[in-house]
């Protein structure tokens, strides 16, 4: 194919061609394992679906509080991911990582969580199921 070229040039050109063909083939193979159409739903779309009902019960903008399982310390990776995904799902509402605002969201891995461990003044407004709850502060 490359007659007339010095051997070192042939090796150089063929090494780039082989690298590209094999690497892109390998990448394609990895992308197909497992094929994306066999995966029911990606993690974020699934997470958003949990918050769909809650979103309709919240004001369109403003700040709401957030708390999660008491055994997950704030800034722990699981806690952090849950907080960030909740923010992503509920934008343009702004989530505060405390229970100070008038409305507070509870986001739990368990469907029947320990409800008001974070703040005893919180009363449940609605349980949306799948570990998603809405609280407000008890009027004094």
């Amino acid at each position: 194919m490359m007659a007339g070229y010095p051997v070192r040039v042939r090796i150089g050109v063929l090494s780039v061609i082989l690298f590209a063909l094999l690497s892109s083939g390998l990448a394609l193979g990895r992308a197909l394992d497992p094929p994306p159409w066999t995966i029911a739903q990606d993690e974020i779309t699934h997470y958003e679906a949990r918050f769909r009902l809650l979103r309709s019960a919240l004001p369109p903008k403003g700040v709401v509080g957030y708390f999660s399982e008491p055994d997950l310390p704030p800034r722990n990776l699981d806690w952090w991911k849950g907080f960030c995904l909740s923010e992503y799902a509920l934008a343009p509402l702004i989530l505060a990582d405390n229970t100070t605002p008038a409305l507070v969201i509870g986001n739990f891995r368990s469907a029947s969580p320990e409800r008001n461990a974070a703040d005893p003044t919180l009363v449940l407004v609605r349980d949306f199921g799948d570990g998603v709850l809405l609280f407000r502060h008890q009027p004094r």
Partner: protein
Amino acid sequence: MTLTLLVAILASMLAGLACTVGLWTRQAPIFPVLVLMASLAVGLGFGLSACASFLSLSLFGAFPHGLIVTDVGLLLLLGIAGFWAFARNAPRAAADAPPAALSPRRLRWLLCCALAITLVCALLTFVLLSLRSPHGAWDAWMIWNLRARFIMRAGSAWRDAFSGLLGASHPDYPLLLPLSVARLWQYLGWESQAAPTALAMLFTFSTVALAWASLAILRTPSQAALAALLLLGTSALLMHGAFQIADVPLGYFILATLAGLSLKDRLPERGTALLVVTGMTAGLAAWTKNEGCLVLVSVVLARASVLWRTRSWASWRHELRAFVSGLAPVLLVVLYFKFALAPPNDLLSHLGWHETVPRLLEPVRYVEMLRGLEKAVVDLGNAALINPLLVLLFYLVCVGIEPDERDRRGLATGLVTLGLMVNGYGLVYLTTSEALALHMANSAERLLLQLWPSAVFLAFLAACPPERSKG
């Protein structure tokens, strides 16, 4: 939906194309020039549309279809300017003679087939990865797509996107990507994940097209094809592209800036137009990510040092004028955003003298940084069969280095720019208030990826083309 998305993308690309008509020349092969203009049109179009969208939101607030109305205005404005530039340049362009620089037939066929197969595999991989993660990776949804949602959903309260309470999502980061996504959503009328995916795809493959077209003009078609093959074989580029990470568009703008400066030295009759476009792409780098500010400073310093060495003062003044005329409108938008809207940057706000100087004087941090860099280089090749950096070095050893005399200034500018950027990144790591190893583990590979397309471009600009070695 597909048609609307296509119209929205075409509207941006037409605006970008209007900025590149001044580059039209017959002094270079026509097809690479057209590919160069089209690939530049992607970045310029989306970048300038995002600038116009931001100005519209800031001046007139959010109103229904506001971003689309702004788009039409921008398209008209740039269209008139582009038509004027084309009418002025066309007679000169037609007079130029096309050079014939084709690779030998068999080599051409070999490279064409390899490129076609690799391109199809890369496109399929990109689509499959996007189907698997339609919202992209953590940074994509947490920073860029979240900001786009605020702009799309919040209406008149769009400035909430920059609240200090959103510190984790870096509200000080610039807006090219969020505004581009929000614009596409406004065209579509709903938040389809096809919009950020299409944007990511355009930037990823335009990077390859830009490298190919620039090298096909500056060197030979075979050099261009080999560079494109190497980039398409870099799985990390495809993966991060499909995961909608902003480092890929930033890498595109760095490449566009360095390629533009190299082309300027080779096509002097299109020099002013190329410098204006280069100024725009450098500014748009700063409108994409904060590291883009480092790109801007590095490019200006690098070019100044190269022209100072060759004592080309008159050339420097002319270049600076044209470069600034492209840069200024974009830079003003970036500065307005930074000073009027963006909260302080988390890295810079922790840089007091009392904390920073001791960090700089700690030898162990330098060792830790080098270890992090080594890991990042290894990570760049993790998803590929073999590290693409090794393949590039092996290729250079095989064919040798023999840059064209006319490319020396462009090559030197590019190398000094990349050197300054690596040093700049190093300084950020050395002074970071975060745990250095963790900070590097989370970001160093992506920073290398920003520089990778430019490094490949410069390597192939310097390499001896295979045709020249033929006996």
